């Protein structure tokens, strides 16, 4: 099956808002796109539209959380992490308030809308803020589990969700443990492919031919440094695959782990090379910017 992670978010949120009277949902005129409309359908009294005013939405979220509410606030990743950044930083993260920023339409896979709407740096921005946790689920099942997880943990969280359909990696029965990286496939010890978001599926496709180990890193912060260190030690070559800038995302996170140790394994980034995206069909954009299994094979096979 293939499903959008934003759809999974909408479904899970609709379930949680009915179970937990403390949950309040905010959106900024994108309820149909971010899928918070699903929560609004079942609980309109606890869904508030801030209008096209992301900064005020984040401030409202902070105020609600300061009154004891668990707040889910959604917009596109570019506006949540960009436009509203400083409100998230000063009014949500600094006071460690219980706000879950669930940002959809992340990365180049937004497609036709083009560079103004394609966040390539949101993970870098959000990782850098003290107190903020950062999660990037790769499929519908993991997205639902992440939403359940962030609803339970205390404090600010950023969840990166996508617009397009992505193939299932997990299933209904999967038990998730976000304190650890998830080794999805064990290879022959030569190549390890670390991946986040929709690049997990691409890494899995590429891994068949390479007999590579594939690791889903969905919790970018807190990061399972021990797990990553172990995998770097047991493989000869490592690659970080991400639908995100090579600056400040998964590659940087893994390189940071390595830099603090005596590990000599080379890590190569496979991501967006410090550039903006462009309009096009999602799959055409991803292909042009090298975010495919084929490109992973090209890079690994040199």
């Amino acid at each position, binding site marked *: 099956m293939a499903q959008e992670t934003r759809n999974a978010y909408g479904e899970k949120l609709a379930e949680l808002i009915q179970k937990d009277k403390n949950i309040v949902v905010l959106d900024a005129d994108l309820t149909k796109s971010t899928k918070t409309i699903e929560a609004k359908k079942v609980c309109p*009294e606890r869904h*508030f539209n801030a209008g096209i*005013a992301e900064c005020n939405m984040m401030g*409202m979220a902070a105020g609600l959380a300061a009154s004891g509410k668990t707040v889910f606030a959604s917009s596109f990743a570019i506006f949540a992490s960009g436009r509203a950044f400083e409100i998230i930083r000063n*009014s949500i993260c600094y006071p460690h308030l219980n706000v879950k920023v669930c940002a959809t339409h992340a990365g180049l896979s937004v497609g036709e809308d083009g560079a103004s709407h394609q966040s390539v740096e949101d993970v870098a921005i959000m990782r850098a803020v003290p107190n903020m946790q950062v999660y990037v689920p790769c499929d519908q099942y993991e997205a639902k589990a992440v939403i359940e997880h962030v609803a339970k943990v205390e404090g600010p969280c950023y969840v990166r969700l996508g617009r397009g359909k992505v193939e299932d990696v997990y299933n209904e029965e999967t038990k998730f443990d976000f304190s650890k990286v998830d080794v999805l496939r064990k290879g022959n010890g030569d190549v390890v492919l670390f991946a986040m978001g929709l690049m997990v599926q691409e890494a899995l496709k590429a891994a068949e031919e390479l007999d590579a180990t594939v690791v889903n890193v969905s919790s970018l912060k807190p990061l399972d440094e021990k797990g990553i260190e172990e995998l770097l030690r047991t493989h000869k070559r490592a690659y970080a695959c991400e639908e995100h800038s090579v600056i400040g995302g998964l590659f940087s996170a893994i390189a940071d782990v390595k830099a603090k140790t005596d590990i000599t394994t080379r890590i190569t980034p496979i991501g967006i090379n410090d550039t903006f995206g462009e309009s096009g069909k999602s799959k055409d954009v991803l292909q042009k910017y090298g975010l495919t299994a084929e490109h992973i094979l090209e890079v690994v096979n040199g």
Partner: protein
Amino acid sequence: MDINELKSHALNIRRNIVQMVYDAQSGHPGGSLGAADILTYLYFEEMNVNRDNVASTNRDRFVLSKGHCSPALYAVLHEAGLLDEDLKTFRQINSKLQGHPNMNYVDGVDMSTGSLGQGISCGVGMAIANKLDNSDNRVYVLCGDGESEEGIVWEALMAACHYKLDNMCIIFDQNGLQIDGDVQEVIGPLPLKEKAAAFGAAVVECNGNDFEELDKAFKAARENKGVPTVIIAHTVKGKGVSYMENNYAWHGAAPKEEDYKIAMEDLKEVR
């Protein structure tokens, strides 16, 4: 309301503001002195906050959106017996009394503020939470006239009006000055009355350094149904210290020893 008592509290608060900024040789005396009467009125007349409920969120809340006026907030909390931290630690290392207020360090601080404009949005969130909880508690936000140059202030007012937050009161502390000078010369945020009214708020104007006028304004705010109230409180920046009054140079400057002596002389008794 005992006006003499309020004036006496306000005098103590002003003396502590000057003392804190002098001791730290850092801080914002001008706006703090100007807003001292508004905070005195809120904490001694208007809000249902006391020693027993200060650590709870189930009470009236106050957001100092103009967070740089933290000396006024700490001094009023101290005057009301709600603050344990020694005022002498203000802006010093390891103190709970941060340069701009941190809600997690001080029970009486209801929101961490400092980056201008954000407190009004936070107040909107608190007021919505009160509505959801069917609580009669009210939310007060103090915002500077210079601060109103931030766009988020108007986003927040739009939301407060849209969600009919009649449990919310936004006080514009209109002293006419900001760091770089006269607000109208810097960029021209005035008139606030017409702007706030155009957004749909009920607007009251008063002298923010006059307790009788403040009393009328806050009582009127409680009568407004279905709309938030904006109180435009005209104040004198630096109020009470002769050489600081209406002088923007004292927005964020600390008095030296000679200045300090004059200030304490100015604030010797209720005038």
